[in-house]
C-alpha cells in the first residue's frame, strides 16, 4: 500500500477534477492522499482467513438449521391444517339437515329480536340460545348413542383427535359464521347492542361445547349434552330468579367464560385417547360394543 503507482496518481487527479477542484486544490490534495496511501493497512494472514471461515461456517450451519427447522414447522402446520380441513369436509355428511336449519333459525331469531330493540344482556332467551346451539351441535356432531366420544375411536382408529377437531371446526365454524353474518347488518347500522349480543351467545356456546366434550369422555354424548344444557338452564333461571333481568355478567366475564370453553375443548382433545374413553360396560371389548351399537 505504501507504493503508489503513477496510474493511481492519474486516477486520483481525474477524480479530483471530476469534483470540480482547481489545479491548486488538486495539487494540495494529492500529497494528502499519498500520505494516507503510505500508511500501513493490515493484510489478513492465511490463518486468519481460515479462523474467520471457521467462525462463519458455524454461524452458517446454525442459520441453515434454523431455516430448515422453521420450514419444517411451517410444512407440518400446513399439512395438519390441510388434513383437518379435508377431514372436516368429509365430516359434513355426519351433520343432519336439521342441524343446519335449526342452528340457522335459532341464530336468525336472535338477530331479529335484537333488531326489534331487545337488549341481549337483559333478556333471558339470549343466555339460553348459545348453549342450545351447543346442545344441537354436539348431538349432531357426535352421534354415537352409547359410546360418547368413543365413537371417534371406532370410526377413526388412527386419529380420533383429528376427527374431533374436524367436527368441531364444522359445528362451531358454521354457528359462529352464521351468527357473525347475521350480525353484519346490525354492525353496519352501528347498533350498540351487537357486541353484547355476540358475547351473550358466543361465550356460553363455547363453554357448553367444551363442558359437553369433557363430560362425554365419561358418559354418552346425548346424556352429556342434555346434562350440560340442563345445568346451564337451571343456573341461568336461578340467576334470573335471584337478580331479575339484571343478570348481565359483562363482556370481561363473557370473555373468561369463552376462554374456559376453549380450554375445556383443548383439554378434551388432549385427553382423547383410548385409555381416557370409558367403555359402556367395563371389561367389554371394543369389537363387541361396536357390533351391538352400530
Amino acid at each position, binding site marked *: *500500500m505504501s507504493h503508489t503507482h503513477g496510474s493511481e496518481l492519474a486516477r486520483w487527479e481525474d*477524480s479530483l477534477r471530476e469534483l470540480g477542484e482547481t489545479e491548486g486544490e488538486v495539487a494540495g490534495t494529492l500529497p494528502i492522499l499519498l500520505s494516507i496511501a503510505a*500508511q500501513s493497512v493490515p493484510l489478513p494472514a492465511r490463518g486468519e482467513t481460515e479462523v*474467520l*471461515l471457521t*467462525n462463519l461456517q458455524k454461524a452458517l450451519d446454525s442459520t441453515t438449521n434454523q431455516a430448515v427447522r422453521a420450514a419444517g414447522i411451517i410444512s407440518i402446520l400446513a399439512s395438519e391444517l390441510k388434513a383437518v380441513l379435508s377431514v372436516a369436509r368429509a365430516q359434513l355428511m355426519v351433520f343432519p339437515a336439521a342441524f343446519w336449519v335449526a342452528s340457522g333459525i335459532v341464530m336468525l331469531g336472535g338477530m331479529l329480536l335484537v333488531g326489534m330493540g331487545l337488549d341481549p344482556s337483559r333478556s333471558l332467551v339470549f343466555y339460553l340460545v348459545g348453549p342450545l346451539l351447543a346442545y344441537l351441535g354436539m348431538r349432531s356432531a357426535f352421534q354415537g348413542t352409547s359410546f360418547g366420544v368413543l365413537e371417534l375411536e371406532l370410526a377413526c382408529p388412527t386419529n380420533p383427535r383429528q376427527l374431533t377437531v374436524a367436527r368441531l371446526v364444522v359445528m362451531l365454524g358454521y354457528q359462529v359464521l352464521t351468527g357473525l353474518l347475521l350480525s353484519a347488518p346490525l354492525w353496519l347500522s352501528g347498533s350498540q347492542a351487537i357486541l353484547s349480543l355476540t358475547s351473550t351467545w358466543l361465550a356460553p356456546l363455547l363453554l357448553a361445547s367444551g363442558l359437553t366434550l369433557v363430560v362425554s369422555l365419561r358418559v354418552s354424548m346425548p346424556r352429556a349434552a342434555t346434562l350440560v344444557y340442563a345445568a346451564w338452564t337451571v343456573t341461568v333461571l336461578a340467576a334470573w330468579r335471584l337478580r331479575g333481568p339484571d343478570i348481565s355478567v359483562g363482556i370481561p366475564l363473557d370473555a373468561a367464560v369463552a376462554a374456559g370453553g376453549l380450554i375445556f375443548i383443548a383439554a378434551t382433545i388432549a385427553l382423547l385417547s383410548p385409555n381416557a374413553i370409558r367403555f359402556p360396560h367395563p371389561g367389554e371389548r371394543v369389537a363387541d360394543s361396536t357390533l351391538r351399537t352400530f
Partner: protein
Amino acid sequence: MEALMAGDQAALRPLVERHHANLLGFLYRMVGGDRRLAEDLVQDTFLRLIRQRTYAESRPFKPWLYAIASNLARDHFRASGRHGEMIGEDALADLVDPRSGPEVTALERDTNRRVAAAMAALGHEYRAALILRFFHDMSLESIAQTLGIPIGTVKSRLSVGTRRLREQLANADSGGEG
C-alpha cells in the same frame, strides 16, 4: 451470494477469500487504525451477510457488502459514544507504516500522523466516501449505492471531505510553525 442464499455452503469460502483483505483495509481506515476492532467488524459484516435473507440478485454485491460494513462501523461508534476524532494516539501510531524504517525522515512520520489525525477528525460519512473513492476505486454510483445517498451528495461529500483535510493540515502546519 445467490448460491450462499440458496444453501450452498461451499460458496462461502470464495466469497470470504475475495473480500476479506479489502474489507479489513476499509474498516481499518474507518476505525482509525484499531486492527482488533476492524477484524471484529469484518466478522460481524460477514455474519450479517450470512444471516440476512433480503439480498436481491439485481443489486450489485460489493456496494451492498460495504454498506453493511460502513453501517456497522457507524453503529459501533454511536453505541460506544466515540467518534473518529476520539481515536487514540496508539491507533494513530499504528497507522504509520512500520516498514518505513530509518530511511523515512521524522518529518514524513509526523506528516503521516497528522494526516491520519485529520482523517480521524472527519465525520463518518465523509471518511467513508473518501476511502471508498480513492482507496477502493469505487465509482461515484457504487458509493451512492453503498451509502444510500444520491450521486450529487457523494460528490459533495468528497469535495467537502478533501477541503476539510486540506484546511486541517494547513491549520496544523500554521500552528506548528507558530
